[in-house]
């Protein structure tokens, strides 16, 4: 399993011991990196539009893909392409600003993304004997 993320909290958590690909960039950059991996035959394991936060709200995204690359997976492809389209639809609109506490806001977005991917990792761990957590 490979965790593609731009969330420093996810990247920095030693408790998440699977392979990580850290993206220094935007939420969309993470989606693009995952898309390119899917084109190479990796499978999507968690939904790229995790959470109900809109792509022009939260800057963070963490996505799980398979470590193995086989033949290209059509379902994964469809989901990532649709997710990129949704992202593009939202980022046309101005980003929300922090009203007085940008740091708190970013920390909260980071925390939510972190918790959502932990929930996905738990689902994954149940299947592979818990070795990844």
């Amino acid at each position, binding site marked *: 399993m490979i965790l593609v993320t731009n969330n420093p909290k996810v990247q920095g958590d030693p408790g998440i011991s699977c392979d990580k690909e850290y993206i220094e960039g935007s939420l969309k950059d993470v989606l693009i990196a995952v*898309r*390119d991996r899917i*084109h190479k035959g990796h499978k999507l394991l968690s939904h790229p539009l995790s959470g109900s936060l809109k792509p022009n709200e939260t800057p963070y995204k963490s996505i799980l893909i398979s470590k193995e690359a086989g033949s290209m997976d059509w379902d994964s*492809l*469809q989901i990532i*392409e*649709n997710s990129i389209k949704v992202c*593009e639809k939202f980022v046309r609109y101005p980003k929300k600003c922090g009203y007085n506490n940008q740091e708190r806001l970013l920390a909260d977005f980071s925390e939510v993304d972190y918790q959502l991917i932990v929930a996905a990792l738990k689902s994954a761990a149940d299947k592979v004997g818990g070795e990844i957590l």
Partner: protein
Amino acid sequence: MGKYRVVHYINQFFAQIGGEEKADYRPEAREGFVGPGMAFNAAFGDKAEIVGTVICGDSYFNENLEAATKEVLDLIKSFEPDIVIAGPAFNAGRYGMACGTVASTVEKELGIPAITGMYVENPGVDSFKKDIYIISTKSSAAGMRDAVKTMAALAMKLAAGEEIGASAEEGYIPNGIRVNFFEEKRGSERAVDMLLAKMAGKPYTTEFPMPDFDRVEPRPAVKDITKATIALVTSGGIVPKGNPDHIESSSASKYGKYDIEGVFDLTESTYETAHGGYDPVAANQDADRVLPVDILREYEKAGKIGKLHRYFYSTTGNGTAVASAKAYAAAIGKELVADGVDAVILTST
């Protein structure tokens, strides 16, 4: 405030000039209303009035599209209207195309709001529903009364610059722009009603149509491939180096057409991809990996195919968006047929 000035466009039949035998009737303007215009005037009450009617035969219009449009437009303009109403055309195909052309050109070139009315299966609907409001009518003139009522109401709103509601409220054919409005029943009750209809095999209307999944009949196979002219088309975004036409990296609104006379191989220094939907490294190194010009030239020389068409067409769009490229794909298709191409190899990434 004075009455809004309305110009009405109708064909030779509704002007009571004649049927098919008079379909070549040339554009003509008359003061005031003609034929169904009377019903419109009645529906406007004291809010508006038809100041002039422009008449044109359906054959004349469709066979002389550019000239007729200009003539009709000039006549309409001479009345200085606030709003233009074309038709309704019901299920008459050529009349529908004329009404759609007139109304959309009036909006585009004169900046005056214009509407028309058609039966949902009129070919004019698909061509123009995104450009203008087309009121949904019955298939024949028996639906004139309802059509006039709905068209007049929407026309008055447009003339006054009022906000236009959802298609279901105003009666126009859905144009892909989603507009909110309040239904009479709540969503759950509508869902129960819809399910009861669906289970009983009765008609119902979905509130959100899924994207178009229609099909086209396969064309006959090429009889003799060694004599055939084959054209290359790609949605993989292959363009001459530097992307001279500035094809956008995704959901491109245009396509590129490139001359490959004398080109035998696409190289790193001559071609690249403009596509943003995949990792471009492999395609930039060797664009033949997306658009196989090299092998087709080889086959052309060896007589395995008749000829590689002189131009290739290129656009971007990930697989699924290939479906949305409808308008320009139709244009490409037309051109290829006109140029005598026999078959197409379309490559997608």
